[in-house]
């Protein structure tokens, strides 16, 4: 029951450690991404959404403001430290993607934890990544049909992976009982002390 401002140490540490697990996934996802990239038909974009999952999973577990942003930064730092193929770029992408995911959760005042909100956050992260791509990758210069396919694949993939899949992953984790350690005790629990 600390009354310090912002996140507690335990929240921060848990967010970061969760994110580092995803940092490992992110790192392994890189080669996979190139493996499924059969030159331009954008199948690769369908799996791009994995890189947004740290924010949604961490938020669903800890359920506090700031967690989504921190998670995405931490996961990309982890990926970076383990020697990402993309180098420094992952850090900046992480920040932007995290900000947009955070905005989605903030829009619901951090009170809603269903598939809908996390899918929205996934869409947010996608928009963030596209802004970065716009500057970095000249995506606007792709042929229009190709660009459309690219965008569609990325959005759909993001919602499926970082939205739907993330929710089901957290449900599986909740079944293990471990999430109880993280979330704060309810009022009823305190009331039962007096019985």
């Amino acid at each position: 029951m600390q009354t310090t401002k912002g996140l507690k140490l335990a929240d921060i540490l848990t967010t970061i450690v969760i994110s580092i697990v995803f940092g490992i996934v992110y790192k392994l996802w890189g080669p996979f991404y190139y493996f499924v990239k059969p030159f331009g038909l954008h199948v690769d974009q369908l799996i791009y959404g994995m890189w947004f999952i740290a924010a949604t999973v961490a938020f669903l577990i800890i359920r506090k403001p700031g967690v989504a942003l921190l998670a995405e930064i931490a996961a990309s730092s982890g990926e970076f430290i383990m020697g990402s193929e993309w180098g420094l770029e992952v850090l900046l992408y992480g920040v932007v993607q995290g900000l947009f995911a955070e905005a989605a959760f903030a829009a619901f005042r951090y009170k809603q934890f269903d598939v809908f909100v996390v899918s929205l956050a996934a869409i947010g992260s996608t928009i963030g990544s596209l802004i970065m791509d716009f500057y970095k990758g000249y995506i606007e210069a792709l042929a229009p049909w190709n660009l459309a396919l690219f965008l569609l694949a990325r959005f759909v993939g993001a919602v499926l992976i970082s939205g739907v899949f993330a929710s089901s992953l957290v449900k599986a984790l909740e079944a293990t009982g471990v999430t109880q350690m993280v979330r704060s005790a309810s009022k009823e629990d305190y009331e039962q002390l007096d019985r």
Partner: protein
Amino acid sequence: MRWDIHYRETWLHRTNPSLKLLVMMSIFILVLFLHNPNVLINLSIGLFLLFFIYTGYPLKYLLLFFLPFFVIFVSTASSMTLFGQGTTTWVQWGLVHVTKESFLRGMHLGFRALTFALLGLIFSLTTRPVYLFYSLMQQLKLKPKYAYSFLAGVRLIPIMLEEFQTVQNALKVRGAGHSGTLEKVKRYAVPLLSQSIRRAQRIAVAMEAKRFSNETKRTFYYRIGFSKYDLMFLFSMIGIIMLSYYAATVFPYIPVTDVR
């Protein structure tokens, strides 16, 4: 950060980590707005030399680290080359449409990815995370609760990789091999995440049991300051950039200054 490899400590290792990070971030942003392929090629050559000569790692490892970046180069370049828009057609074959413009843009993107990768490699090969976070606390006023949480997390990476291996073996033994990619991610993620969450909670309690507090003033075991190496770093970076621009105007490789 590489765990088991012995390296020679160079001046790049002694540069202030915060400064190094900021400078590299600035170059990163500069490159985002750099559309002249001549300058970009020069810049990547400059950074490549820095990486090759001054990171202090044995040649074998340097080549090993660098290998994946060729793949990135090719794949980044190819997508734009094959499907980009342009007016001077070179090849037209089904959906594939290679134009002079798209080719140049593709190459430019390839070199850009290479630059980002080099910046990242140089940084992570020459910066110990502990020094980085101490420096971030001392120079950029990062809150200790974030810095030490990151450090605790970094410490857990090798442990997690070991656990990852164990889960892999366990799944093999149990015959849980045949499943979709996402199902597989879940099979790995649930044990690793639950173990990590428990560990994070315990470490946080242990840290507070050792009187860690975000409020009280603390001393630092490592004092990270500035030295002549920082000037050296700053000048060499500025040098590389200026040379890149100069060489690009005097000896251009291709007569194009903007690939957009």
